[in-house]
């Protein structure tokens, strides 16, 4: 889809809204527990306006919980979450969430789904659908769309409200690899156009590095790594620096040392273990 150059250019040149509209997010000392088990322990996270932050970690580490607390879908057991603009004054943030399953209303047509909660007519909704490349599917029922198309509709629905903060809860986890890459490019270009603050929760470290300005790792309910990605955009996956960064972060997530071939040992396959030569000893 985005390999079609005309469409890609269209997405790029769609008039951007009034400059940077992101919001600053301050998560301070947040605690959250479920049935006695502490999922988040004094988590601290600060996000600048317009920043793209990716949160990675093993499953069950609390990254989705953190996102849901920021979204206001759940309330924390301690600590606070504040939003503020450039001026620093605390206020409510215009937030939209994209879930792992598209959560489209199956009884509304695609266009009506995008226009959910939108005051005014469907004009903006049509524009949003065009931005994700699905304008001609507006009159169809969600049930006939593929998973990737449904997530694109969900993305259009989230962005049609021009949010200051876009929260993405593993939105591409259920898609195939090719669709995932296209969706990543789409999300990145829309973020660059509009300048909202974005928080992406993902288990895919490669996705995190491809999209984010900062990658944050949650372990045991705490944030243990905050790595700034300075690679130029659009990020080239085959690039050596990209691969090194990915290896580094992945090994931190998996908690084992990064593999680094040690030339001093010679050809390792020729080495025998003690047991193998024990007969001669």
């Amino acid at each position, binding site marked *: 889809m985005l390999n079609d150059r005309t469409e890609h250019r269209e997405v790029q040149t769609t008039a951007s809204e009034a400059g940077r509209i992101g919001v600053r997010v301050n998560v301070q000392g947040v605690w959250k527990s479920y049935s006695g088990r502490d999922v988040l322990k004094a988590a601290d996270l600060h996000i600048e306006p317009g920043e793209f932050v990716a949160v990675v970690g093993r499953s069950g580490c609390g990254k989705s919980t953190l996102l849901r607390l920021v*979204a*206001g*879908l759940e309330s924390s057991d301690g600590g606070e979450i504040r939003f503020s603009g450039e001026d620093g004054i605390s206020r409510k943030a215009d*937030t*939209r*969430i994209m*879930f792992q*399953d598209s*959560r489209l*209303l*199956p*009884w*509304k047509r695609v266009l009506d789904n995008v226009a*959910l*909660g939108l005051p005014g007519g469907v004009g903006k909704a049509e524009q949003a659908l065009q931005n994700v490349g699905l304008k001609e599917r507006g009159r169809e*029922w*969600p*049930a006939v769309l593929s998973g990737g198309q449904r997530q694109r509709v969900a993305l259009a*629905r989230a962005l049609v*409200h021009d949010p200051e903060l876009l929260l993405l809860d593993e939105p591409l986890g259920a898609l195939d690899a090719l669709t995932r890459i296209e969706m990543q490019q789409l999300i990145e270009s829309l973020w660059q156009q509009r300048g909202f603050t974005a928080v992406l929760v993902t288990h895919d470290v490669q996705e995190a590095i491809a999209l984010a300005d900062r990658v944050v790792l949650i372990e045991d309910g705490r944030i243990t790594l905050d790595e700034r990605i300075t690679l130029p955009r659009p990020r080239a996956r085959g690039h050596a620096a990209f691969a090194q960064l990915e290896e580094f972060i992945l090994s931190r997530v998996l908690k084992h040392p990064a593999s680094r071939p040690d030339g001093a040992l010679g050809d390792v396959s020729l080495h025998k273990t003690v047991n193998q030569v024990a007969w001669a000893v």
Partner: protein
Amino acid sequence: MHVTTADFEALTPPARAQRRPAWHRIALGKLAPWIVPVVLVAVWQISAQLGWLSSRILPEPFAVLKSAWTLAASGELWLHVKTSAWRALSAFAVGGGLGLLLGLFTGTFKQAETLLDTTIQMIRNIPALALIPLVILWFGIDETAKLFLVSIGVFFPVYLNTFHGIRSVDKGLIEMARSYGLSGWALYRDVILPGALPSILVGVRFSLGLVWVLLIVSETISAQSGIGYMTMNAREFLQTDVVLVGILLYALLGKLADVLARTVERYALRWHPGYQ
């Protein structure tokens, strides 16, 4: 070695023109469901004509048709059908409407469920037809009694399915809609009611069938018109063919109501992959 385009084209079979199924196959497909009923009726007719079936046990189909024709010609049939249909409709409106409202109420508000659900479940298990003596005592033997009896029977399927429908709306969708700023009536109208609609329609279809069953019995309580009255009268005079006309009429009306419900379902649920 690799396969070139020329080899590939040689491998594919020649394109065959898409063959539409022959017209006689289509006709057979449509007529097939009717084969069994037609055969049964034919067997019935033949056995009645040959004398294997006494006309007092089961009159032949032609006799049934003839008496139906006589009744229709005299206008009596239409009067009975109209009265019965009116009773069925009003009882369905009352019982179904109440079931819908109460189901929505207890489904939406947890406190309402705690207060009312147990009572309703207890009443549900009382057989409606066992209430007939009480109904006669309370309401006498005119229209109110019949309305009450049929409404009670219609109420429960609609109530249960509405309650279940509201409770089983996908919580993820509700969460999503809330996060997009929907609340109160808008949330109800756009998310909860359409989500509960498949279940509600099941309850409606179920109770539509129940209406006729209960109507037959309630029309025996004491009626001046209606299909049940006509059937009971005919039984007194041993007019078994008229009895059969009555039974067939109930079957036809029940089928008609079901067809109506199916049409509503087909329209209201056209987004549902399971109903396409």
